[in-house]
């Protein structure tokens, strides 16, 4: 067999290389901040810190599963085992050099995390999972380099803002004013949870990254940054997929060795 090494993403630009890096599960995302478990729970707002997980069905052991070879093989996640509810965390990524694009969240998430349900929309990306599994995933998503406090928002509702101009402090627009810029500390602080319910105490999520740094780590193509059209390899790749899909739709037998 030909030696095979997963390649994750094509393209010759720095943006493509960043995409490859984030999708590759062997790349450890740089941790930039620490958000306590309780604060993360408060930010998501599904339960009160310390409260037991609510369940949607009894634990699998009590439930007794039907005779199915796949259930016997596939190990359930801890949340599924316990019968947790399925909850979500949702992000809005600004078009102004946020580290991730919406699609990247899905590609990366499905490579790195097990048992997740990710949906991509233009202005928001929900990630759903069993509650205790979600908390584990959300921690990495909020604590590492892929979360910039100014250009990424944790927004369960009223997500509008990804394509709006940044404010005077470089923060993405948020109609619910969930996050603010603390000028004294130079940090972004959440005063409301992801759906806009006021928090009993603010949660600091750290300093926004400088513009140059964001341009370096972003996975977004922009004409005023790295333009998609300049990544010839990637364009050719996308055109190749388009061509193959079309040719195959006409006659799959004619698509050979191309």
């Amino acid at each position, binding site marked *: 067999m030909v030696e095979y090494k997963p390649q994750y993403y*094509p393209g010759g630009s720095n943006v493509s290389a960043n995409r490859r890096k984030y999708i590759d599960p062997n790349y450890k995302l740089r941790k930039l901040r620490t958000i306590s478990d309780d604060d993360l729970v408060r930010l998501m707002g599904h339960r009160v810190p310390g409260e037991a997980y609510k369940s949607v069905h009894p634990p699998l052991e009590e439930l007794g599963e039907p005779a199915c070879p796949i259930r016997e093989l596939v190990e359930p996640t801890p949340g599924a085992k316990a019968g947790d509810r399925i909850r979500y965390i949702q992000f809005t990524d600004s078009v102004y050099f946020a580290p991730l694009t919406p699609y990247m969240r899905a590609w990366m998430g499905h490579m790195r995390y*097990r048992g997740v349900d990710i949906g991509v929309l233009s202005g928001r990306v929900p990630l759903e999972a069993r509650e205790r599994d979600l908390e584990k995933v959300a921690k990495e998503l909020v604590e590492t380099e892929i979360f910039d406090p100014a250009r990424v928002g944790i927004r369960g509702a009223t997500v509008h803002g990804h394509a709006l101009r940044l404010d005077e402090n470089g923060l993405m627009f948020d109609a619910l004013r969930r996050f603010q810029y603390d000028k004294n500390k130079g940090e972004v602080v959440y005063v409301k949870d992801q759906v806009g319910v006021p928090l009993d105490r603010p949660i600091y999520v750290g300093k926004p990254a400088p513009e140059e740094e964001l341009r370096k780590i972003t996975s977004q193509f922009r004409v005023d940054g790295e333009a998609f059209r300049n990544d010839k390899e990637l364009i050719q790749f996308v055109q190749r997929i388009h061509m*193959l899909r079309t040719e195959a739709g006409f006659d799959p037998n004619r698509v050979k060795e191309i």
Partner: protein
Amino acid sequence: MPKYPDKVNLYDDRGKLFDTNVPVEALSPLKNTAIQKIISYVKQCVAVNLEGVEKALDTGEVGGKWCIIRGRSLKLDLVKNAGSVADSLKKCLQVDPDDDTEVKVLKGGKHLLVKVPAKRLNAGVEYTTGATAVAAALCCTIIENFNVNIWDADLIHAAVWGRYPQTMEMLGGNVSSLLAVPQQNEGMGYALRNIPCAHIALIAKKNAMNAAALSAILEQTAMFEMGDAIGSFERLHLLGLAYQGLNADNIVYDLVKENAKTGTLGDVVISTVKRALSDGVIKPLKKTPAGYTLYTTSDLNKWNAYAAAGLLAGTMITCGSARSMQHAPSVFIYFNDLLERETGLPGVDFGRVTGTGVEMSFFSHSIYGGGNPAVFHGNHIVTRHSKGFTIPCVAAAVALDAGTTIYTPERISGVVGEVLSEVPELRESLRYVNEAAVSIKGGV
């Protein structure tokens, strides 16, 4: 002499070798006798909710919910007398005394599983004969066995047939078939695709491999009826049915096993590419200046079949590890996206599964209404587009759900899924199709 050179090894739902070197055409709906039997049973088998008829007569609630005719009520002990009702019903349906008519009493008389004789279906052109014959025969049987007078006979009709013919289908009726009425089919040849995944999962008793197999059999057989699996496209569908639905060469089972404990969807993508490479289905084409290897194939139909098997395995890993059906559409989009980005080759059904996933995500996540994956089928307006490669995965996902939805498959399916699970060929379709393939393999 087979038309196509492909031979596959057959495995059961637990990855045990069943037979080797079976021509793929032995699995064709045009030749496999078990598939033909399954399709016949889908037309012939009808579920009767005898308890439902009894309740409807008792309360006067006929023709759908809240549709109560005040002052009209009949107290008939149908469930208690299910045995004699079944005997009379059988006699009424029989064409010849020893034909293939069957009436089975289930759940202490609450339900009946009725098999209408093939001769009745052969004498007509529409598959609705199954439901109409049973409904009409049941009315006659109840009227005769319980001595119902002319003034109450209309209530019997309404309790059995529901609001039909004021409605197109038997709304609120107590006789149901797997197949919807023809007017509800979205186009020509869609009948076998108009079966919600809830029914499939329950018929297979939530065995994900059998659910996927039955769903693939129905979907890919429909492809022949729709005019898709013919000419340049026949082999694409035959290989798809074999590798995705029927676990040919054990690919689905192997991929699941490899990623069962800790694997992600991305890991299944990588395992799929590895398998395709080691089996010689794909090979490197060239290296780009940035170091990315583009892959190519000389057999796109086989690559599609491998990708489709990987898609099902990816569904089983993602929905199986979360024990939740709602993840399915996300799998459909991103398995294919990642597979395309990994190889430079088109995803399952050349982009159509990806597109189906996008629509299904919206309509299965309360964004634009819709419902959970259990209500979807190949005739559904947002899941029609893939030619038989999406719905088997949805059926498997529904089978793997541990109870995360408000509307459970049991609630959506009602009586029909549970009753038809009594038919072995429908419940364990993989086994029967394998057996039939082996028995005809020499003569294909």
